[in-house]
């Protein structure tokens, strides 16, 4: 890529960082919410959707 690499790779780097960060943070938030809800429904089955 020659001299263009100094512009191309930072552009892809910024995009990759944003895409990976949002995907990871969203997935971790979902997992945390699922676990928290599981703890409540396990201790009180009446809270479950199936109850």
């Amino acid at each position, binding site marked *: 890529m020659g001299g*263009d690499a100094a512009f*191309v790779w930072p*552009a892809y780097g*910024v995009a990759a960082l944003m895409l990976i960060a*949002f*995907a990871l943070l969203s997935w971790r*938030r*979902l997992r945390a*919410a699922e676990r928290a809800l599981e703890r*409540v429904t396990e201790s009180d089955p009446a809270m479950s959707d199936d109850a």
Partner: protein
Amino acid sequence: MATGFNIHRFANPGRFLRLAGALLPWLTGGAVILFAVGLYLALVGSPPDYQQGDTVRIMYIHVPSAWMAMMGYGLLGAAGASALIWRHPLADVASEAIAPVGAGFTFVALVTGSLWGKPTWGTYWVWDARLTSFLVLFFLYVGHIALTHAFDERQRGRRSAAIIAVVGLINLPIIKYSVDWWNTLHQSESILRMDGPSIDPSMLWPLFTMIVAFTLYFFAVVMTRMKAMLLEARHRAAAFAR
């Protein structure tokens, strides 16, 4: 009349959770596959431009990011209007899920555009109509996020943010037609043209692949965030009821 597709059916949180559960694996899998194919085509399989050289490869992430930023704001405005008019229970959740993702894509579009501008125009930034209206879009997103969390009474913040989302919709046609209405350094429309795209197919296909990958990614992340928020609300309600 009970026939036909009715979008309001999905405003039910329980129904949305079931829909998200079914769609998320497909959206995620599709995005991963298309990102792999799109990145290969963008970085290896497509030729350098005869004028721009390899900096044309920035287009394959800049254009999809800009489209996601604008599509995201369109959805944010629609969700804001739904919240204000119909008070859909999911509209506020959708707004809170979309705004940071849209702001992220706007930021990426601004940075990648700037990195493309330096070798092509000789400057990272110029206050022309397209770039300035896009910067305004970023501030609208940031304003929406700030307003949502600005009040102790959550509903007041959401309502104020919904108003800014709807008012800010006026910026979308300004961004789209800025290159036609004003004399800008940014080039005019080259994909969505009445006479067809002006880009060579060897570059159009990688771009199209990346646009679909970004779109699937956008909906996968927004749905994941909405699902998490709905489960957090259920958890709060369950904890409160004990």
